[in-house]
């Protein structure tokens, strides 16, 4: 949010259109159609007042109805033409807006599927989400509607000016002389309004933020008895908002007033000069009347034109952010040779995939995070033969995920090698590796859809028997039978219809079903009830059995059973060994274990 508000003024070459060309090119025919029909449409708008002129001149002033049927016929035809032309223009604009929007959404989403995880570590979900959804929408509407609006209004202004000049050049000048005033006023006020609107948006998000905080922090506010302070702070923000909004309103009111007043002035000028010419008998009343219509009608298009340009300018920031996302390159990429053999993310060549056995080896690995300055691994060596269970322990935020990130090749070592089954991970594709790794997160993540779809996430072609077996193996059958529609029950957005414990167990079943050779688990710290806790312990043990596993461990049972324990502090591995060895060292592990033991034992006694 904040970065977005700060980077409001971005100037791109040619309004960033060249960078958007790939998305516009498929619709260039529709765009041309839109342009041509917009020009035709504004032409009909210019022509319509001429009928009133003709009615006045040929019938009212001449006191005859001769030619009336033809007049009506032409008039009706023009109206029909206008309606037809306008519907094509409007639909073409819709088409361009939606289709370019769709293509940009697709492109950005697909691109995100190939970006490194470091990108997702550095950019919040909300930020990236806004790139896919709102930037593409705004760009889509810019290339269609803002463009159309600009074009239409320019055409109208030019057309009306041309008609007036053709009818009576001297009188036309009296109208056209006022136009620059409207242009200047629009440019001045529009610029001011853009700034004011930005401030308004900022304040608005602050108000929402305060509402959010007021409601989520209700308990604290009550116990601290600071309601008065919260309320008065909030009122200060809303009062500031009111002041700003009223100021904006005054600016806008002045702007609109000036525009309509200039129109009236133009009309007064026409009335003055026009009446003189008409009285001199050089011009007919109909022409005078049509001039007054144009005079009154010319200032609004000026305002719209300027506002379309202002839109174009404000969308620049969206264009910039969208194209920057599309130009972001991946830190972890497969080499062309690897892609040649194993296929890419969207087109895997599974027939060439070797099975994975499960030996993992770190050889002299140096690593620092792309956004970090310090090396967290320096000359790290570790051999993990197939079937070894590795537990990684340490305080929250100590950097326990680093090894896991490297094994999964979410990041690559700065120097050194990681071998899987004796071959460098970079020699085979990421998709190959990932398809053989089972992954259970601390905060289990399910997708909207049914329970079954979620269970099959890692193995879409799993049979019902396999699914049921996996569910039974983590004793999650009670969850399924509790649900009204069993396997076909919806889990809700992010699995919200299920409890954390249930989500946890289902994500275990999902991992078991995929039957990975290497298993990565980030154990949950959240407290669940005793029964679920016990089930999860058993599920963990079952998953780890016979598989190479890396567990970010919090449970004593998991830690004790591990073949190798790594203790992490401040991002670095400070101790390694088996449970007994590490306890004997009386170091960090000992302290950590003791505390954990205290808590678990206490809990056991009390429950």
């Amino acid at each position, binding site marked *: 949010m904040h970065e977005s508000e700060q980077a409001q003024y971005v100037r791109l070459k040619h309004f960033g259109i060249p960078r958007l060309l790939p998305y516009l090119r498929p619709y260039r025919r529709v765009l041309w159609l839109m342009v041509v029909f917009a020009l035709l449409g504004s032409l009909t708008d210019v022509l319509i007042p001429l009928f009133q002129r003709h009615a006045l001149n040929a019938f009212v002033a001449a006191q005859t109805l001769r030619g009336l049927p033809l007049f009506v016929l032409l008039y009706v035809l023009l109206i029909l033409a206008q309606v037809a032309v306008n519907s094509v223009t409007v639909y073409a604009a819709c088409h361009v807006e939606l289709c370019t929007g769709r293509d940009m959404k697709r492109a950005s989403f697909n691109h995100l599927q190939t970006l490194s995880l470091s990108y997702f570590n550095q950019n919040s979900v909300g930020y990236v989400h806004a790139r896919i959804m709102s930037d593409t929408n705004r760009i889509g509407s810019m290339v269609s509607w803002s463009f159309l609006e600009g074009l239409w209004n320019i055409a109208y202004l030019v057309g009306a000016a041309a008609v007036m000049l053709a009818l009576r050049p001297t009188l036309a000048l009296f109208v056209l002389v006022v136009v620059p005033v409207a242009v200047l006023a629009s440019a001045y006020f529009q610029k001011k309004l853009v700034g004011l609107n930005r401030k308004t948006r900022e304040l608005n998000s602050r108000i929402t933020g305060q509402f*959010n905080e007021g409601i989520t922090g209700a308990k604290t506010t009550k116990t601290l008895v600071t309601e008065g302070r919260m309320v008065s702070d909030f009122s200060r923000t809303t009062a500031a908002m009111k002041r700003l909004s009223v100021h904006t309103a005054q600016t806008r009111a002045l702007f609109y007033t000036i525009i309509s007043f200039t129109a009236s002035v133009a009309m007064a000028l026409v009335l003055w000069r026009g009446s003189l010419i008409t009285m001199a008998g050089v011009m007919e009343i109909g022409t005078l009347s049509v001039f007054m219509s144009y005079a009154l009608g010319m200032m609004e298009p000026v305002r719209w034109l300027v506002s379309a340009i202002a839109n174009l300018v404000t969308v620049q920031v969206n264009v910039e952010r969208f194209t920057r996302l599309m130009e972001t390159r991946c830190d972890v990429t497969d080499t062309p040779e690897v892609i040649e053999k194993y296929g890419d993310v969207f087109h895997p060549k599974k027939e060439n995939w070797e099975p994975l056995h499960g030996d993992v080896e770190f050889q002299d690995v140096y690593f620092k995070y792309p956004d970090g300055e310090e090396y967290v691994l320096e000359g790290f060596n570790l051999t993990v033969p197939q079937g070894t269970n590795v537990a990684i322990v340490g305080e929250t935020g100590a950097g326990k995920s680093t090894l896991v990130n490297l094994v999964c090749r979410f990041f690559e070592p700065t120097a050194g090698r990681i071998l899987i089954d004796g071959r460098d991970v970079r020699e085979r594709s990421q998709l190959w590796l990932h398809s053989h790794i089972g992954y259970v997160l601390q905060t289990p993540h399910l997708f909207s859809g049914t329970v079954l779809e979620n269970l099959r996430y890692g193995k879409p072609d799993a049979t019902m028997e396999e699914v049921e077996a996996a569910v039974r193996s983590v004793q999650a059958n009670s969850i399924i039978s509790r649900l009204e529609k069993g396997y076909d029950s919806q889990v809700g957005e992010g699995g919200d219809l299920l409890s954390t414990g249930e989500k946890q167990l289902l994500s275990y079943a999902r991992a078991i079903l995929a039957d990975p050779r290497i298993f990565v688990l980030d154990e949950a710290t959240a407290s669940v009830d005793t029964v679920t806790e016990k089930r999860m312990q058993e599920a963990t043990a079952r998953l780890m059995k016979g598989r190479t596993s890396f567990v970010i461990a919090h449970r004593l049972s998991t830690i004790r059973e591990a073949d190798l324990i790594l203790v992490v502090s401040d991002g670095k591995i400070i101790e390694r060994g088996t449970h007994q060895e590490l306890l004997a060292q009386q170091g960090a592990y000992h302290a950590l274990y003791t505390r954990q033991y205290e808590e678990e034992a206490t809990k056991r006694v009390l429950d």
Partner: protein
Amino acid sequence: MNAQPSPKKRFSKSSMLLFFLRGSKRFFVAAVLFSFTLTLLEMLIPQIVSFTIDSVIGNKAPSAAWIAVPAAWAGGVDFLRAHVWVLALAVAAVALLAAGAKYLNLYCHDKAAETLMCRMRDTLFAHVHTLPYEWHNRHDTGDIIQRCTSDVDTTRNFVAEQLLLVFRIVILMFLSFFFMFRILPKLTLVAALSIPVIFLYSVVFSFKMTKRFTACDESEGVLSTIAQENLTGVRVVRAFGRENDEREKFERQNSLYTTLWLKLCRLLTLFWTMGDLISGVQVMLVITLGAVLAVRGELSAGQYIAFVSYNAMMIWPVRQLGRVISEMSKAGVSIDRIRYIMNAPPETDAEDDLCPPMDGDIVFSHVSFAYDQGQEVLDDVSFTAKGGRVLGILGATGSGKSTLMHLLCRLYELPQDGGDITIGGVSVRRIRRGWLRSHIGMVLQEPFLFSRTIAENIAITSEGLSHEEIRAAAQTAALDEAVCGFPRGYDTVVGERGVTLSGGQKQRVAIARMLVQKAPIMVYDDALSAVDAETDAAIRREMTKHFGSATVVLIAHRMTTLMHADHIIVLDRGRIAEQGTHDELLARDGIYRQIYDIQMSAAEGGQNDA
């Protein structure tokens, strides 16, 4: 806040709107009046034009007195014929007045809207803060926020935009018809005939459109969720190698969404252009028939031009009317959603509630409590926390420890038959809530910090605290060192907009916050669970100096934290299993002893794996 309604009042839709409109009503009325003035002035201009054409350029006598009199006053028709600029000046003058009216109209309108908005927001925010904690717990945060933000927007738009626009359109129609009727009733009838057609057409179509819009919005919601879930679950997607399936899922919904919108666009295009057609034909009819009537001598050229102008002024607003009405129909739901919050009864103290001294004994006698009917969380709990002493509470998660504290500070009300809690002999039911809570300092396991600076968070209960006092409290809570490590020190903003503190740091900020409160009762609800044992011990050592004469309640798992309490109770599934001093409990050889042995042996490193 004077914006608060009286507690027992229940709002109906209209009474709530009227309540919110206090303070902005006069601006609304002014806006309508200026709107009327503006329209009237705008309608004068065609009159001047008509007069110019008929009587100045032509030589018809002025038809109406309101033109004839000022014309005579301005020097008569002959004079005007020689000085046409006077007429142009008259147009400009009227336009200037109209501009003034327009400015005032827009200004009053926005002022009214903003005043209304500000009042709605303030009232809701204050009201939500008076609602009992129990209410907050029962409702979804996102839903409340939505009611307080987007429903407020909808309501504001209903009153300030749509309702006012309807007024404006009605005024415009009324005045145009008035002027048209004065020119030629017959032709007015023709113009008027098309009004119901345009109006009905746009109402029906707009309602139809609204439904489609909802469908499109929902489909956009689904698409947005897919993207959201893909991003939050990016590790799962990668780990299972499901990028391709994700791509297909997104693409399916993306196409569906686009197709739906394209369909809607076709309908919209049809709607707009059909509207254009109907109003275009209406204008054509007026122009043609007007010409026929003019040729028949029923209408002069000037009148003809004026009539056509009036007709044109009216057409577009009438088309808008349909859209506005269909939009207005949506507001009812939003108003009800806000009403639901406004009608929730706030916590209120009785007139004669007390502010007794808070340093006496805290006595729980036969307290029983259930959040939901039937599920007893506390069952006949009785104990005493001596004034000025330290009470320790040991219990498992869900044993009811936190409920004791909720009841003590009346976040939840103790039911009449649920026993009693007294402080210095006075039942908490009789103590003013503000008084009670401000004298009980509380640190929770997962403390909530406000997105302000660390200094502001610490001093939130006591304004005007010096920097030294804040810093002293932070030092006691073993926080000072960490804070000084931040680039902006105590001015570091906490939370989303600033640094993210670790669980232990948050707990320490909360402890410092409580220390400056200098409350006679202090409650630590698992308050040091996220800091390691050494820091815990250090903080406790420091804090013991600050306990002074305060009554302290320590809820903890760690024996070393609890053992120094003057009195300890062990809570087990809502009942008191044991209570006494540390030595008494050890001697009893019960749960307490068991836990003590485990923890002590763990500390010595010689534990057996259970």
